[in-house]
């Protein structure tokens, strides 16, 4: 039973079967699946680290572009603070506009990261391994950008600390009945939880980076890796902590977007006051989030030459996931629409009439982006594995979901109980600048982040690869997986 150690090679040196047919099968498996294409960890480390230090001209051009846009955003924000919110297109009926839509949107794209990482981890989905960190990073920066928006949005930013439960001599506390306060708590919790979750998984990679770098980088990585040595006990604790955090973060994730939806549904504004908003927003967030992760995967794979890590199978899996979310989103959207339509309340009808009337171009573009294109294409594996196609679909879903949020926030507000006070909303330059600038800011953060932090969780990849085994069953080679708990 016990074989001599000498006969067990390293896991990346799988013996090639003598049988030519079987050998072809194994070869095919390696080409198709990252988990079967095991390579020495050192090689993977190099693969990961190599592009981290590369900053070609295109990188700098992109960085300068995104930086300029970020600067424009900060300038617009500064002007807005000094001159007042009057420079926006908000009016006496529509007091919330794209800033709140942006809050929802950015939290939304931050949703998928944790879901992919934590939920798929618990479900032991191996396709998450190389993309988990790329997704988590979106969560981190998406949330950070989202958290900017309540700050950008308020009229008196210098009094924002009134919203925080800080002990004070007047014993004035925030209003715990306000959905905005719940939302703020949920976002903060989620941001802290996600950061922690991400950081824990980063420790071995920081250690790996520490061991492969010199100078100040080594010092920084050394500090960040918290003295990781890779002992059995450390791996074990990492496993336990990751699992616990995975369990904890998932309910928080659901609470965050439910909380965001409550900002709207707790109000008595027609078009907002809907019980379905909680799950609807969670699904919507996952939808735009998964699409965002696909976009990031494509960009990272292209620009950092991570073709080895991100393969067709990953895009295929994410595509299927996206298709499921498309269907779920359609279900919720029309559940809401039909309830309003069937309810036949004058104001809800007025909102629907506005969507299909003056706002029809926006509305139908939204339906095209969110329903027609994903539903019409994602069933095909060829589309799912085609990077250009997936890129376009991802962009369209971002546009569609963004329009949806703006329509819900600013569109609904333009119709209220007394028709004398209906005012349509038109965005002015600050909203446009801030929105695009924040997107650029997200990209900027992401770009810089990829040059300092291993965007591929290498240890997860070789953990997965190490657990793969090929067995021969009859004439076939079957990949199996070992899990030790």
């Amino acid at each position, binding site marked *: 039973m016990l074989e001599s150690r000498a006969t067990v090679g390293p896991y990346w040196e799988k013996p090639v079967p003598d049988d030519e047919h079987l050998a072809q099968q194994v070869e095919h498996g390696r080409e198709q699946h990252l988990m079967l294409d095991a390579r020495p960890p050192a090689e993977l480390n190099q693969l990961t680290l190599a592009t981290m230090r590369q900053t070609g001209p295109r990188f700098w051009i992109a960085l300068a572009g995104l930086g300029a846009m970020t600067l424009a955003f900060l300038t617009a924000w500064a002007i807005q603070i000094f001159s007042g919110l*009057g420079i926006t297109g908000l009016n006496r009926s529509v007091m919330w506009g794209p800033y709140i839509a942006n809050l929802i949107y950015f939290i939304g794209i931050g949703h998928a990261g944790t879901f992919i990482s934590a939920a798929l981890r618990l479900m032991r989905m191996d396709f998450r391994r190389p993309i988990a960190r790329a997704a988590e990073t979106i969560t981190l920066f998406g949330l950070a950008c989202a958290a900017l928006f309540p700050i950008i949005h308020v009229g008196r930013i210098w009094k924002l600390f009134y919203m925080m439960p800080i002990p004070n001599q007047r014993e004035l506390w925030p209003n715990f009945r*306000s959905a905005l306060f719940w939302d703020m708590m949920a976002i903060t919790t989620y941001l802290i939880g996600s950061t922690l979750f991400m950081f824990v998984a980063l420790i071995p990679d920081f250690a790996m980076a520490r061991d492969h770098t010199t100078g100040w980088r080594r010092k920084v990585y050394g500090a960040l890796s918290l003295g990781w040595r890779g002992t059995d006990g450390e791996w074990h604790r990492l496993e336990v902590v990751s699992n616990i955090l995975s369990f904890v973060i998932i309910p928080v994730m659901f609470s965050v977007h439910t909380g965001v939806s409550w900002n709207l549904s707790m109000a*008595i504004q027609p078009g907002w006051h809907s019980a379905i908003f909680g799950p609807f927003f969670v699904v919507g967030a996952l939808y735009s989030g998964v699409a965002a992760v696909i976009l990031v995967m494509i960009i990272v794979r292209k620009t950092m030459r991570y073709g080895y890590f991100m393969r067709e199978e990953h895009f295929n899996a994410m595509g299927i996931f996206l298709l499921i979310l498309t269907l779920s989103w359609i279900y919720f959207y029309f559940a809401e629409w039909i309830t309003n339509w069937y309810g036949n309340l004058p104001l809800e009808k007025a909102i629907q009439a506005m969507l299909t009337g003056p706002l029809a171009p926006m509305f139908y573009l939204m339906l095209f982006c969110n329903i027609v294109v994903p539903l019409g294409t994602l069933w095909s594996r060829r589309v799912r594995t085609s990077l250009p196609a997936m890129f376009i679909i991802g962009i369209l879903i971002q546009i569609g979901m963004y329009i949806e949020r703006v329509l819900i926030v600013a569109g609904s507000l333009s119709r209220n109980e007394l028709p004398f006070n209906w005012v349509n909303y038109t965005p002015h330059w600050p909203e446009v600048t801030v929105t695009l600038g924040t997107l650029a800011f997200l990209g900027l953060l992401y770009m810089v982040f990829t040059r300092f932090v291993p965007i591929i969780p290498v240890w997860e990849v070789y953990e997965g690869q190490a657990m793969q085994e090929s067995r021969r069953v009859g004439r076939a080679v079957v990949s199996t997986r070992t899990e030790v708990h």
Partner: protein
Amino acid sequence: MAEERNNGHKWTMIVDLDKCTGCQACVVACHAENNVPISSEDEVIRGRANHWIRIERYWEGEYPNVKARFLPVFCQQCGNAPCEPVCPVYASYHSTEENVNIQVYNRCVGTRYCGNNCPYRTRLFNFWAPRFDEPLEQQLNPDVTVRSPGVMEKCTFCIQRIRRGREQANIEGRPLEDGEIVPACAQACPTDALIFGDKWNEHSRVAQMVPSERQFKLLENLGTEPAVYYLKGGETHVGE
């Protein structure tokens, strides 16, 4: 949370739609009393006209049988106000003394949540710093704050007049009399379409008028329990 009868006052306004001529006297009186800045032409076009009390005009029918109906709308001082629970900083809160909805300007951070949640859209946001060309600032009422940019504001039932009146009565050691406290709008209204008083004082004019069969509350179905009662306009037919 709905309010319950307490030892305070229940300030109430009655708007007799039969008498409102839409003449805007109340609007200008309110601007004068409460230091409400005037919106410029561009601001009005952008849908930001700033009046604590506005006279909504609804057309009914078509020429030649067309009617114009005036509806003065201002903060309804809801007993169950939708704006109160949504404010994260308690800038919009309910006074248990006066039983009106109070906006604390210096507490407001400007989330504008209350504005969205007001079905009457009577809450206004200070999009800009208020501007009074010199020396127009001389006209400002020293009893009322000029609101800084970025805060919400709304009709207060002229709380400064309520306070002054109550303090005066206190100093003189007597109970408040009905009609002693009158907000600027009701004070100005030529036709007496606005009547103000304490509904919990059963001898007040307001308390006696509220049970009118013409009475209704605006958007009553929302359960906001407004402290403003409207009296429906009537019509005399030729030959009656």
